[in-house]
């Protein structure tokens, strides 16, 4: 098992290197550089321009810049953001808990509803419930995130006035971040109403971000379950006189979950990187929003570092999925 994990980690190095290279080159291919973007329409003197270029190292050949960047990475230095003049790693770590918290709640929502819905649809295959659910799932999967988010805001926040429109917590509350998770920190602060405020801010973004994974998980669970229900061992379980709940919920589901866990992992990875739209709609101070802003400001170090950190996380999530699969499925565990 340990050798398996170590080998997987070693295999990620070339992937991450290639990714760093691509990000590095791509952002430099985009017209305009950090100085030009900051200069605005008023313009600055050519001397000042040269000075800034030199200061940021942009007057060096690109290959030299790249080598410097990699050299820095190898020493754990992700660079300094041009805009905030703060360490990229520190900035990322400050924002990341918000994204992670949102993703976790979104995934919780997707799994808690997706798996049981998928199982029910499979068990009641061909019924109105099955067709209805799969239709809705397809709808949810195809829905543009920004539109779906705005619809929910319009209905729940504006019309019904049930949830806040944006942000992570009411401005009434203030406390120093401990874990960076607003739900946890609000509890730790002991301020009355803080937790429910944090939670109510989370509901809509989590639903919006979780809708596509929910649909994907429900459909995957259904098809996987349909396949497993035909298996001989399900018949064996029924021949033992076990209750339908046990036959389906234990014997069938355990086997059906193997591809579902993979789906959950992949969707989870995409969520971390792709919360951009959701974070923008709900003014959620997370990594996605920060990355988008970095692109607009041509903040090279922030973008390069941010993308690299996110992809490292994605790789780690995928690895966790593999390990989880090994835990569920003894055949993988024993290397067969």
């Amino acid at each position, binding site marked *: 098992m340990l050798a398996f994990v170590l080998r997987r980690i070693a295999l990620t190095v070339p992937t991450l290197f290639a990714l760093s290279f691509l990000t590095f080159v791509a952002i430099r291919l985009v017209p305009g550089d950090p100085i030009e973007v900051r200069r605005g329409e008023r313009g600055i003197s050519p001397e000042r321009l040269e000075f800034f270029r030199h200061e940021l190292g942009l007057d060096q050949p690109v290959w030299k810049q790249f080598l410097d960047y990699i050299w820095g990475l190898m020493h754990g230095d992700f660079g300094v953001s041009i805009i905030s003049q703060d360490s990229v790693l520190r900035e990322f770590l400050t924002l990341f808990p918000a994204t992670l918290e949102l993703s976790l709640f979104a995934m919780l929502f997707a799994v808690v509803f997706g798996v049981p819905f998928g199982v029910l649809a499979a068990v009641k295959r061909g019924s109105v419930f099955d067709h209805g659910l799969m239709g809705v799932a397809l709808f949810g999967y195809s829905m543009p995130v920004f539109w779906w988010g705005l619809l929910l805001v319009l209905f729940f926040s504006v019309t019904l006035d049930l949830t806040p429109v944006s942000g992570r917590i009411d401005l009434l509350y203030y406390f120093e971040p401990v874990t960076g998770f607003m739900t946890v920190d609000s509890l730790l602060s002991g301020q009355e109403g803080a937790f429910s405020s944090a939670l109510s801010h989370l509901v809509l973004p989590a639903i919006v971000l979780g809708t596509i994974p929910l649909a994907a998980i429900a459909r995957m669970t259904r098809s996987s379950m349909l396949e497993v229900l035909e*298996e*001989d*061992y399900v*018949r*064996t*379980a*029924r*021949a*033992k*006189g*076990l*209750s339908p709940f046990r036959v389906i919920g234990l*014997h069938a589901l*355990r*086997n059906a979950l193997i591809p579902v866990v993979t789906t959950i992992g992949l969707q989870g990875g995409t969520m971390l990187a792709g919360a951009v739209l959701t974070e923008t709609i709900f003014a959620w101070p997370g990594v996605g929003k920060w990355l988008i802003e970095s692109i607009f400001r041509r903040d090279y170090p922030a973008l390069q570092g941010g993308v690299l950190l996110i992809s490292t996380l994605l790789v780690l999530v995928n690895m966790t999925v593999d390990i989880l699969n090994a835990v*569920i*499925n*003894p*055949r993988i565990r*024993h290397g*067969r």
Partner: protein
Amino acid sequence: MPLLEIENLSVDFETRAGGLFRAVDRVSLKVEPREIVSVVGESGSGKSVAMLAVMGLLPKTARVTADRLAFEGENLLGLTPAARRKLVGKDIAMIFQEPMSSLNPCFTVGFQIGEALATHLGMGRAARRARAIELLEQVGIPSPESRLSAFPHQLSGGMSQRVMIAMAIACSPKLLIADEPSTALDVTIQAQILDLLVRLRDEKDMALVLITHDMGVVAETAERVVVQYAGRQVEEATTVDLFRDPHHPYTAALLAALPERATEKRLPAIPGVVPGQWDRLEGCMFAPRCDFATPLCSTTRPSRAAPELGYALCHTPLVAGRPTERTARREELPA
């Protein structure tokens, strides 16, 4: 009182086209306690389906009807699903053709054996473990204690079938239905598994229904035989009588196809295949493949012959390999 009574059991499947397909057609069977009965027939003869109907394991698209389907005098069709589950897996158990895929790959052998014990006998953890070891010993698995934590993929086919048998006999059932238990296994292992089943019948006082397509298996194990063809029961006799003087042409043809009985260089075979869903016949289902078929056979459904003729479902049951005239039946027909 017979252990299992089946009278005129029929199973119909709803087809996609909206019609009904009759997989089992008025099959009757009585199994006495401690008896070994074999149900014989080739693929598609409905032998498995009939037994799955007894177990209540058919899919929802199946319609089961019977004049009587009783276990120890209790009507199985009248039971609620929950009441039936109390019988199934406890008093009636079943093992299947493909042992490798019949065990759940995600759970250990010990867990899967223990499940029946917990469900039906309410045994605690330690008691289940002790009983599981005892069961694995009984089915001839070496070092049973270490096998408890094994997963199915770590077992061979023969071992898997032994585990299946251990699971099936866990609650000391009165009836064990074995659906082609040795078909998927090596020849040497086949004999071991059959020996094991017969030995367990002797030790445990249980009856055994052995579904097979192999007349050799029948000869070695069964006391009584039911021959099925295309969902219908064509003959029923004691094993000795059946092998000595088969009365239905199909039985005779099956026996003639046994390598041990072959007299010519080339092994005799039955031409053609079992009629499927779309080519069901008006008269005798076996008529197109039968050496003794008359024009009457393909138009009129035969009735059952007398018990001494093996209840053969035939217009002209064989006696000593020659068709007899059942004049009484013929006279009933319009000229």
